[in-house]
């Protein structure tokens, strides 16, 4: 149980993308936002997706998050073909296997912290008692159990993002997808948030961070750079897989 595996090949792939294209039909013109992308992301990987605006970064993020489907190519999420799924199936994938963290937190302003964290479990149809137990558990992980009954507007930016991370974790997802998670935070608070991602990574979670900041990308194990809808570079920056055992799913 103690073997630290450092090679990707031995690990289970979470995401396999082959020749994926995404073309936006804007009426008069077609925009080819992604133009034949291949990408594999393994269990317990920690990937930073970088690129200037217009590089297809957001499009890729939407596809990875099953918020959108490719125009062409194959996308397997844990071996399942996402491209052919209907809307309800995509919603279920997002609900159970993907944890979203957004730049502007996207908490529900009128709901308290506990209810915000509970929300994915509501859509999973979990009973109220179980929801509260699970939500409190993940609030512990981000160190906010004492704020469970506060409203988002009573929290600092960093605390709000920690609530959002707790919400992303609550359904025990296969991958955590963070879109500029520190973009609305000052650099110190941003570092705090990246530390939480670091500990989640150590605990065996798979993390994808979309960012345009090199400082943030540095925390990852691997950096994927996009330009004009292509993958410009995909480098492992030397850090090993950290978890002794992958997180259980």
């Amino acid at each position: 149980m103690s073997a630290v595996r450092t090679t990707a090949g031995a690990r289970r792939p979470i995401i396999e993308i082959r020749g994926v294209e995404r073309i936006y039909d804007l009426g008069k013109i077609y925009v080819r936002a992604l133009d034949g992308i291949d990408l594999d992301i393994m269990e317990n990987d920690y990937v930073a997706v970088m690129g200037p605006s217009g590089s297809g970064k957001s499009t890729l993020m939407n596809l990875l998050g099953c918020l959108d489907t490719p125009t062409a190519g194959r996308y397997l999420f844990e071996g399942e073909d996402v491209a052919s799924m209907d809307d309800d199936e995509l919603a279920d994938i997002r609900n159970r296997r993907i944890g979203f963290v957004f730049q502007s937190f996207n908490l529900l302003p009128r709901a308290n912290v506990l209810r915000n964290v509970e929300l994915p479990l509501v859509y999973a149809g979990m009973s109220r008692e179980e929801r509260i137990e699970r939500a409190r558990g993940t609030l512990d992980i981000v160190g906010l159990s004492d704020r469970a009954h506060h409203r988002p507007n009573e929290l600092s930016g960093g605390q709000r993002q920690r609530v959002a991370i707790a919400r992303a974790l609550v359904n025990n997802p296969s991958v955590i997808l963070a879109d500029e998670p520190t973009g609305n935070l000052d650099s110190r608070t941003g570092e705090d948030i990246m530390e939480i991602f670091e500990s989640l990574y150590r605990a065996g979670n798979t993390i994808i961070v979309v960012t345009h900041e090199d400082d943030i990308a540095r925390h990852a194990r691997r950096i994927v750079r996009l330009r004009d809808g292509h993958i410009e570079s995909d480098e492992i920056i030397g850090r090993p897989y950290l978890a002794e055992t992958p997180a259980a799913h």
Partner: protein
Amino acid sequence: MRRIVTEFAENARIAAEQIGAHKMRSLLTALGVIIGVMAVTLMGTAVNGLDKGFSDSLDMLGTDLLYVERWPWGGAGDDWMRYRNRPVLRTEFARQLNDIIIDTPNSALDTAVPCALSFRAIQRGGESVSNVYIVGTTVPYGYVNRADIEFGRFFNDAEYTSGRNVIILGYDVAEALFEAGRETAIGQEVRIRGLRFEVIGVFRRQGSFLGLQSFDNQAAMPLAALRRFERGNWHTHLRVKVRPDASLHEARSELEGAMRRIRGLLPGHENDFEINQTEMLEDTIGNVKTQIAIGGFFITGLALFVGAIGIMNITFVSVRERTREIGTRRALGARRTTILTQFLMEAVGICLIGGAVGLTLTVALKFVFDATVPAFPFILSPQLIVAAVIVSIATGILSGFVPAFQASRLDPAEALRHE
């Protein structure tokens, strides 16, 4: 299944929070529904009340009575001249009818009484009640009309035969002329056109026809007594009681045959009299009810239409305001149907609030009505409350559907980018 329940509970909670967060906006939006629900419930209570008042009044007129008159009830229409030129009905027809009834085996008819009418003032000392419906009739009048005597008695055979000047006063007349109490009227004298009449009885209170025409502004006396001040038969009609076990229809055709015999009408000649029964009034009141219902539905429909547009509009606004929230919920695993029901429930919630306010106002109005116009029966039935709730929910679903559907079709990725 569990998922549907938890999502429903969550959506109900969101709807309550949203409406609570925009109290004024929600209430203003609900105004159309408030008016609509009030219109539908008020219309319903009016129709219910009319029904109740009408059936009470029909009981007073007697549902087992046939009236032989010159005019049909419910208006003569264009045939005014035809009825106008019919010969008058004479009081002796009642005796002739009773002879025929006795000679007819298994007759469907029971007894006929003549009613010669006079509309005169009755005076006592300085007091006077004008335009009293005075009936000159025979002894069985009380039996035929189920006219109960409160104090004293009806006139007897001897008084009828001799045509004594005795009178039985209606409740309102006795009340007006004898301030000391209706019971003090017995044995006292009243005057009609200078003639003196001894009060021998007072009728029990009968009530009024839909609160409009009172049945208590009447009096009865022997036919011969009435003839002392009212000679013509201009206002004479006959009332015929039907046997309780006989069908009204049979009784009617039997009476028609008997009247034709009395009138000596040859086959092929049309009737020169009319047989009226309370059923005919029901047709008339049916028309009134239909008109109220049509008017009510029009107002209700209009109010609900305007209300529905307001709710549709506010739901569109709500969807726009919360586009990012929709995106977030979709990202967290909400399905399209979940978003659809979320906004539908919000619209329905606003409508239900409108319905509740409308019902409350209707109930308040009912109390006002009961206090000010007690004679008009204002009846709020459970069916009406159920109808109000159904109307509210239906309005919510119809008005909320388009914006809610639009919300459910939003592209999650685009919704998330929405500022």
